[in-house]
């Protein structure tokens, strides 16, 4: 086969038009086998439309979808062999857990003994063997989620699609199931495409994240890349609420670092920019990377005044007024002996790798 392992799932210039609006506006991506890709975006961004296009329930206006080198764009959903876990799980209410899981095997005419064996194995994987004879209505949300997962895994599909699989669950259960999903992914080595609007879920579960906004893929990268090196202002603020300050480009050093200035304070960034000297660029500064000091003014920092302070126990959140704008500061280390009260004059400093130059949103 010509398609390399890197092109396991390919979305090629996909467009979906509804009247005047484009739910999917020229999306392209290519992911290797075995990845856990999360489509992350606000509601209405087109992430679910993309997932449903891969599943076959949305016919794209143009573009192609390829799986393992095969063009599946025009295949009906039942011919795609994908394991889909729908929002709300969509279990068959009139069938028992066992019958639900057996369904995809029955329609594939798998011999009865084999069905029995695979269903038993599948239920064991999600730890539901004891509940095999129950109806979905008699299960908790977490259990229903596991049934849906077992049902989509039992026929060993080449790709699993998850549509906000954890959104209906409470927080504790969600964390637990995130762990389970991750383990399952590691253990079975299946390729997964997951949709969520929850950035924590995306960061903790995925091996790859595609941040989607207004029908476009804004950035595709590992969770680390997405969080530490956001490409645009939208990514920086949507994934973990960052501070955006506008800084002027002063020049470039030989090592590639960019010298910047904001609010009368000069600093550097290791990220590159195509902007000309003298131009203004948005710079992302994560609240938890900012270090707040009181007392004698540091010559090396950005001076400011604490406007608000919220104590959360494990962290303390500050809003600090500076010449470069209002900045959010999150103190996780709790190095300060006591929370700094509003009105206090402070200085903000940060490690050299903290500022990240981003692209302004359209």
């Amino acid at each position, binding site marked *: 086969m010509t398609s390399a392992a890197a092109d396991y799932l390919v979305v090629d210039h996909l467009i979906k038009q509804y009247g005047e609006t484009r739910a999917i506006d020229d999306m392209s991506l290519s992911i290797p086998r075995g990845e856990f890709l999360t489509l992350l975006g606000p509601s209405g961004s087109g992430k679910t439309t993309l997932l449903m296009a891969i*599943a*076959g*329930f949305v016919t794209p206006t143009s573009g192609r979808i390829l799986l393992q080198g095969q063009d599946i764009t025009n295949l*009906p*959903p*039942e011919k*795609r*062999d*994908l*394991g*889909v876990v*729908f*929002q*709300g799980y*969509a*279990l*068959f*209410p*009139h069938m028992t857990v066992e019958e639900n899981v057996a*369904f*995809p095997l029955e*329609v*594939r005419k798998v011999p009865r003994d084999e069905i029995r064996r695979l269903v038993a194995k599948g239920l064991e994987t999600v730890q539901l063997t004891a509940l095999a004879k129950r109806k979905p209505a008699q299960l908790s949300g977490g259990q229903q989620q596991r049934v*849906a997962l077992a*049902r*989509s895994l039992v*026929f060993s599909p080449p790709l699993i*699609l998850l549509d906000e699989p954890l959104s209906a669950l409470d927080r504790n259960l969600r964390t637990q199931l995130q762990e389970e999903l991750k383990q399952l992914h590691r253990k079975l080595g299946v390729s997964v495409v997951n949709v969520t609007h929850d950035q924590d879920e995306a960061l903790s579960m995925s091996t790859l994240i595609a941040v989607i906004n207004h029908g476009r893929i804004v950035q595709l990268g590992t969770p680390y890349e997405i969080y530490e090196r956001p490409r645009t202002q939208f990514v920086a603020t949507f994934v973990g609420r960052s501070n955006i300050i506008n800084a002027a480009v002063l020049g470039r050093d030989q090592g590639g670092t960019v010298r910047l200035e904001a609010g009368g304070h000069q600093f550097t960034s290791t990220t590159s920019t195509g902007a000309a000297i003298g131009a203004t660029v948005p710079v992302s500064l994560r609240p938890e990377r900012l270090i707040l000091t009181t007392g004698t003014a540091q010559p090396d920092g950005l001076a400011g005044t604490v406007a608000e302070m919220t104590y959360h126990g494990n962290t303390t959140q500050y809003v600090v007024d500076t010449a470069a704008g209002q900045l959010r500061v999150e103190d996780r280390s709790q190095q300060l002996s006591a929370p700094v009260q509003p009105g206090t004059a402070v200085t903000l400093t940060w490690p050299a790798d903290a500022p990240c130059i981003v692209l302004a949103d359209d």
Partner: protein
Amino acid sequence: MQPAATPRLSRTIVIALGWLGLIFLLAPLAVVFPVSLTPERYLSMPTDSISFQHYAKLISDTRWSSSILTSLWIAVLTTIAATTIGTLCAIGLWRLSGRLTQYLRILLLAPLIVPPIVHALAFYRTWTDFNWLDTISGVVIAHTVLCIPLVLITVSTSLSGFDRRVEQAARSLGASTFTVLRRIVVPNIAPGILAGAAFSFVTSWDEVVTVIFLTSRKVMTMPIVIWNSLSERVDPAVAAISAVMILLTLIAVFLRLSKDRKPQGH
């Protein structure tokens, strides 16, 4: 007046009115049963003796027995046809669900809105051209048209509570459209289909207006025989058949209720 007395008084009035309404509805039944047992050959209350001759007549008199069979036959065929078409129609409208299907839905419900005499006339006019007058199939087709909207309503109601994603899930798991219909959709809307079938059966079973227009001699349905018996000579067999039908209905209702109650015993 004491504050506590008011709700109790109004409650009593409501209950009393309820019973009055019930008696008003059930009073004819109290007449039908004794009349069916009269020894006379005309509609009358039995005085000195009772007789079951009118019940026997329902079986022995071929006019009655064959009309009952004809009505049953028509009702069964109508139920099968209307339930199948109505169900498929409801599923189709549910799947497509656009503005056009809304208009289509209203159009399909038209037979319920148009007065019976009007569509009876329309059937008569059309059936003459088709040469379908006075045939069983002619009546079945007309009744099917009348019953499809009933099925459409009950099945659509069932479908409105059915999660579209369940159907999508079945397809994504590899089931063909027909398998999804048979194994997923139909079992989940079975109550609506059964209700539609029941309504269709009952509607066809006692439908008289259309049948009067569409039949003359060859096809004699039970409601037609009742109608003729009443207009000719007030035959007490009419009371007997009414009594039988009431009893059958009661038995059906009790069977249904006892079936509903069973699961609670667990």
